[in-house]
């Protein structure tokens, strides 16, 4: 706890420094709001730390989270600052195209609900690799699944940290380094002390704040147009430099291969994100798991409709107001600041302060969830099950998970600083592609395909993981934009279509041809596993709090 207090001290001193910085008069509301948020979440962490006394409570908050709470927490994981500011910024820039991403992020949810949520809850304990290794060999499967989880989590973390540093730099006038360190420090304290219980409640509070803030902005925008959408969109078309084009698909997707490939990555990537999958173990049973998806889908869908209105609102109310533009006529900050400027345009300093604080809170909550998922891959999958083969004691596993949290936190801070000047936008795309290529296929096949064997998963899964990373490096985003080569070796921006085919064919081929004794035993275990996945017979009861 001392570290917690020392850290909040550091935070206050930094923030008061911020209030002395040049652009801060209007940020007083933001700072008060933010300090309040941090104070409350640290209190929650303190409360949670007393209940976090077993591996189960650390990874799953004791398994007693309700469907509604989990739905909010899941939607909180999804409503990152990147998706709030990024999608509204994309809508501000090119209109309709923002909707393509929103729908892509949402379409994964019916897939999760229909195919994954219930079996996942019924078969797993703490992480999705519990399910994959249910009837397969622990060691190789755990190592592969942990590689998939960790690469997804770390890429996602880098993107969030760099985004966070830049955003906080603009919003609060804090230097980039201290912003990244504050985010990293708070995230380490939430997760190390409060585990999943604190992480979940931080996420729930933030989700409620973000949904209310976004609703407020959208309401105030539409209010100015008496809720007349026709009038609203006409204004946007009149004002925007691209005119009518903002109402139709633009240049985001130009050829069918990219269209399908991006579509696959978004649709199945969601179903392979370890920090999302992990949330299904925080509810008591399959019934609550189902409920959480319905709530989450509702909240996320509603949120994307809001970001779309906010993006268009910014076109109408911000893009022609010199107060928000720099000398060259672009938005102050960058396009991702569209929602922030709009909050000021419709709600003055108070709403701006509120939204800024919420954006900061959002980053904190999302990185905490990611770190917890990464830590569980290290402590539960690699340490406890791959290396000690389940023979460890729980105390030791918890210790390792906390060390892993601190390690990941420090890693995230360092990478955030190293990548400051890099374009990290592609990293979230790559994280989704890896999740769709490795995590999703091995999870879905382990639940539904009887003939799956360890050999198939290991060869197919690692081939897919290797190919997807290779194709991104050789593709236009890294090979041309970052390495400054003239032409990409692999012509498509989105590799998921190709890499998913490699994984599925690899797994199918090397499972089918697997005639070892071991594989026969694994196939025999399928019936029992399927029975449990469908009925929930044999699952743990939640801790009573």
């Amino acid at each position, binding site marked *: 706890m001392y570290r917690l207090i020392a850290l909040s001290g550091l935070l206050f001193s930094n923030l008061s420094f911020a209030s002395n910085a040049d652009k801060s008069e209007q940020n007083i509301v933001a700072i008060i709001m933010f300090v309040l948020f941090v104070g409350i979440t640290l209190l929650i962490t303190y409360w949670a730390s007393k209940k976090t006394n077993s591996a189960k409570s650390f990874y799953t908050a004791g398994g007693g989270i309700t469907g509604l709470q989990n739905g909010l927490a899941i939607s909180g994981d999804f409503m990152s600052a990147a998706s709030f500011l990024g999608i509204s910024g994309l809508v501000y820039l090119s209109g309709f195209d923002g909707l393509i991403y929103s729908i892509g992020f949402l379409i994964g949810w019916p897939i999760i609900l*229909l195919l994954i949520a219930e079996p996942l809850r019924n078969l797993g304990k703490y992480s999705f690799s519990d399910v994959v290794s249910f009837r397969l060999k622990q060691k190789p499967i755990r190592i592969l699944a942990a590689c998939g989880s960790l690469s997804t989590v770390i890429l996602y973390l880098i993107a969030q940290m760099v985004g966070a540093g830049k955003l906080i730099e603009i919003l609060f006038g804090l230097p980039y380094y201290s912003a990244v360190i504050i985010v990293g420090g708070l995230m380490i304290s939430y997760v190390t002390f409060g585990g999943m219980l604190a992480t979940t409640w931080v996420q729930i509070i933030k989700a409620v704040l973000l949904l209310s803030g976004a609703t407020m902005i959208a309401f105030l925008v539409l209010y100015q147009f008496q809720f007349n959408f026709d009038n609203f969109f006409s204004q946007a078309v009149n004002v925007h430099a691209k005119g009518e084009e903002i109402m139709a*698909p633009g240049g985001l997707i130009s050829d069918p291969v990219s269209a399908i490939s991006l579509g696959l990555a978004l649709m199945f990537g969601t179903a392979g994100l370890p920090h999302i999958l992990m949330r299904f173990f925080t509810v008591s049973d399959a019934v609550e798991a189902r409920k959480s998806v319905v709530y989450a889908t509702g909240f996320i869908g509603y949120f994307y409709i809001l970001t779309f209105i906010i993006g268009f609102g910014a076109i109408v109310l911000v893009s022609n107001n010199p107060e928000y533009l720099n000398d060259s006529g672009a938005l102050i900050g960058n396009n991702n600041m569209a929602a922030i400027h709009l909050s000021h345009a419709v709600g003055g300093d108070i709403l701006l302060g509120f939204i800024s604080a919420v954006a900061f809170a959002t980053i904190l909550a999302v990185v905490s969830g990611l770190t917890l998922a990464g830590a569980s891959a290290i402590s539960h999958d690699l340490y406890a099950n791959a290396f000690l083969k389940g023979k460890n004691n729980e105390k030791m596993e918890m210790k390792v998970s906390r060390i892993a949290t601190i390690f990941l936190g420090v890693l995230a801070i360092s990478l955030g600083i190293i990548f400051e000047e890099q374009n990290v936008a592609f990293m979230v795309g790559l994280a989704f592609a890896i999740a769709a290529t490795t995590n999703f296929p091995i999870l879905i096949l382990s639940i539904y395909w009887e003939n799956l064997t360890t050999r198939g998963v290991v060869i197919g899964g690692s081939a897919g993981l290797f190919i997807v990373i290779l194709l991104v490096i050789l593709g236009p985003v890294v090979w041309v934009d970052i390495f400054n080569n003239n032409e990409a070796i692999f012509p498509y921006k989105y590799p998921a279509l190709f890499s998913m085919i490699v994984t599925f064919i690899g797994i199918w081929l090397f499972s089918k041809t697997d005639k070892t004794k071991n594989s026969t035993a694994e196939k025999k275990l399928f019936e029992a596993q399927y029975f449990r996945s469908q009925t929930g017979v044999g699952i743990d009861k939640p801790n009573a709090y």
Partner: protein
Amino acid sequence: MQKQYKTEAYKQLKETRTQIVIPLILLTVTSYFSFIWVIAFNPDFFGLKIFQTKISIGILLGFLLILLIFVITLIYVYLVNKKLEPLIKKIQKNV
């Protein structure tokens, strides 16, 4: 132990689940990929305006697709609670 996999209730559970899941999966995948397909091959169609308004077909269909996604999750949970949950309860009781 083997017997529980052969019960009538479990057989019915598996069959009914397939009957619920397959149509909903098809609906999800086809509606999404048709949307993506139009964007890739016929983007101008999504730029057409609805009646006398400035609202484009693409935006309207995009919003409706978001709504449809949510409705699919509602239908699924409704059907599962009504048709599968009693069977699951029955099986759990007998084990």
